[in-house]
């Protein structure tokens, strides 16, 4: 189950396409739920975000992703695979920094599990992000888990 989770730079269209292409070989699957997290050009006072710089505790990210995958596969009996890709390094506003792709026999569990995986990523992955503004100032971000 272990595979590369961390992507240096953005999760590109090519990476996303290759992940989707792989699905056609899994003919037992009937539904896929895909979540893409994109860097948003938030405005903080007079400053607009132009990019986010991600850093991570890589060893722990791998362990936590494996734990999340096991938890989802044991909690959703129709789910067959959980793919998680997360950026580290710099990702520009408008680019994708997170991919979650959950596949199962049918749509309902795939959709529910996908949403659950995104929640668990925010709660448990040791990843940090720093907003880079258009004026090149920088600020650490804290997740709002609500």
């Amino acid at each position, binding site marked *: 189950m272990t595979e590369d989770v961390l992507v240096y730079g953005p999760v590109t269209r090519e990476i996303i396409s290759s992940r989707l292409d792989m699905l056609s070989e899994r003919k037992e699957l009937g539904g896929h739920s895909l979540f893409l*997290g994109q860097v948003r050009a938030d405005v903080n006072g007079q400053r607009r975000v132009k990019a986010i710089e*991600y*850093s*991570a*505790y890589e*060893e*722990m990210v791998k*362990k936590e992703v494996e734990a999340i995958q096991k938890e989802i596969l044991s909690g959703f009996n129709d789910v067959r695979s959980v793919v998680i890709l*997360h950026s580290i390094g710099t990702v520009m506003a408008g680019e994708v920094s*997170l991919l979650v792709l959950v596949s199962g026999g049918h749509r309902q569990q795939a959709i529910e599990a996908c949403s659950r995986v*995104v929640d668990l*990523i*925010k*709660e*448990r*992955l*040791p*990843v*940090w*992000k720093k907003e880079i503004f258009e004026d090149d100032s920088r600020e*650490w*971000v*804290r*997740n709002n888990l609500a």
Partner: protein
Amino acid sequence: MEIRVLFFGVLAEVTQTMFRHYRDVISYSDLINRIRDEFPEMEHYNYRVAVNSEIVNEDPGLKNMDEVAFMPPFAGG
């Protein structure tokens, strides 16, 4: 014992280091005290501690060459 210590996120900036070795560590509390003495500004930040990638809430009983990470609140996704 010798302990590898990692600092992440804002704590890497506060301590101006991401990685360092501590030698002759007697215990977990000895390590924590040494880090607090060396980087008193850390007390202004929230953080959790992981030992060998597992979050700990109390003294885990360190072993030689364990890896101890100081981690500010996560912000992934």
